[in-house]
């Protein structure tokens, strides 16, 4: 196993009576891309805040890149980049000025600052927009700038909190390519998301979170194979028919889940030798998630 870039053990974070993170264990090997998958309120963003010491855990142990948090958080933050869920760029500054500010905040020396900014502009494909004010950029460009800002000091690890939330599919694909490029360079990535496809495409390993806990950990393919099988049949029909399919599946020892106007039957090969009529598709992480938590992902 590679050395650990992140180690959380029994971490608890409470906000009054609400337990946002409830005994979370999380291991992120160096050089890997780990996805934190869960619906809104699962504790993903709180976990991200704990990792930058913008939230302090009530219980448990946290280590980032070998530094204990919160006491040594500043050292850890010097080696990390953070892409926040909510845009917090300086909107009256230009693209380049935003990067220059963070080159200073990340203590890049005077002699290297120019190169670092150019490199970050290049990664985010924003070189041509360097003199554009941020409030004149599109949503996708602003997201790319947020990523460039997090990379300006060549961090060893990047924390991405819902990096593509609210973006249209085309822009999302562009960002996936950017994130995939980082992954290929060996940068450790911890990425929270509630997009199933994002986690499946980018993450080496996924931690499924629900109500502040990790309910499953593993490679996306392994989790799907273990919990949902290879295939799913979605049966559409009126409510009495769906109830009938659920009852028959239960008798056959198969698991089902309601997906809006249909019932998804998992591993339908064992359906008393017969296969229910419906739309066949490959099982996915969403099936796993719903089976494990009883919640819809988004």
């Amino acid at each position, binding site marked *: *196993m590679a*050395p650990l870039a992140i180690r959380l*053990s029994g971490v608890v974070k409470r906000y009054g009576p609400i337990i946002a993170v409830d005994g979370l264990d999380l291991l992120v090997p160096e050089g890997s891309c780990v996805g934190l998958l869960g619906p809104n309120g699962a504790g993903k963003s*709180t976990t991200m805040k704990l990792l*930058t010491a913008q*939230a302090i855990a009530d219980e448990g142990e946290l280590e980032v890149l070998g530094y204990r948090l919160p006491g040594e958080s*500043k050292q850890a*933050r010097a080696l990390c980049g*953070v892409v926040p869920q909510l845009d917090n760029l*300086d909107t009256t500054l230009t693209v380049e000025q935003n990067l220059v500010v963070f080159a200073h905040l990340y203590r890049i020396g005077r002699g290297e600052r120019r190169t670092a900014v150019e490199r970050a502009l290049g990664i985010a494909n924003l070189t041509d927009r360097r003199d554009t004010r941020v409030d004149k950029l599109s949503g996708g460009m602003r997201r790319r700038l947020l990523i460039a800002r997090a990379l300006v000091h060549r961090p060893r690890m990047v924390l991405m909190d819902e990096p593509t939330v609210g973006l249209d599919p085309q822009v999302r694909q562009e960002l996936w390519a950017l994130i995939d490029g980082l992954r290929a360079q060996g940068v450790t990535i911890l990425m929270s998301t509630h997009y199933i496809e994002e986690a499946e495409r980018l993450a080496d390993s996924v931690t499924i979170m629900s109500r502040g806990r990790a309910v499953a950990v593993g490679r996306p393919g392994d989790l799907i194979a273990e919990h949902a099988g290879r295939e799913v049949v979605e049966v559409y029909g009126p409510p009495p028919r769906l109830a009938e399919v659920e009852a028959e599946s239960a008798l056959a020892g198969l698991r089902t889940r309601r997906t809006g106007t249909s019932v998804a039957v998992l591993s339908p090969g064992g359906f008393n030798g017969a296969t229910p009529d419906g739309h066949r598709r490959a099982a996915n992480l969403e099936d796993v998630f719903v089976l494990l938590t009883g919640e819809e992902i988004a």
Partner: protein
Amino acid sequence: MTTAPARLREPTRRLRRLERPALAGVLVREMINFSSYWRSTTFSSTVEPTIYLLAFGFGFGSLVSTVGGYPYVEFVGTGTVATAVLFSSAFPAMFGTFVKYQFQRTYDAILAAPVDTEELVTAEAMWMAARAGTYGCAPLLVAMIFGLDPSWGMLTVPLIGVLAGFGWACFGITISAHMKSIENFNYVISAVLTPLFLVAGTFFPIDELPEWAQVLAQLNPLYHCVELVRDAVFGWEGWADVLHVGVLVAFGLLTWRLAVRGMARKLID
């Protein structure tokens, strides 16, 4: 494996409190931002106290020729320095801080870098203090146009502005850290800043006020700023000025710690 191996740790020194690179980073951000709005800020920070100076200096000045042995326009001109310092430190600290943490989430971005709350608050207050020291000189320059004689002591006025401005900036940050909405600043402006502004000896000497008001004035940092500026311009008063400096230093230290504490509670969950 239960712990991350030591080799992951960079062979760097332990980062300490109030590090220069962290303070510089926050100051650079402010300076770059300032380049986009300096005209409007400079206009309001200099024109407003100048209008006070002209209105009171020449309005009341036509009724009152001298106060405390000084021509009234010079008395007000020196007093208005403290007003300019207050306007260019406490007000931007209150509103600017609130906007940056509540709406722009700027502080979330900065605190994700190797900067802690103490460094963030200190650098922000230093920046506003520097601005206060600069803008505080505007009324003095206007008063010189209207007859105030230059003196060597005037060279210390920017420093007095920086010292008082740091305290007022930290005061503003502290208020901002405890407010739930921007409208609540009206309570502070009406109930705290306006009375302090009026009982500071800016427009009239406090020894004409009732005794209780004179006692309150002694607790008012703005009064000590006014007195210090007047003494710098018209002639030092020895230990009295040491006391004024002492009050401003104590005010700055107290509000600095309150601001750091308040913002840490606001920004760190």
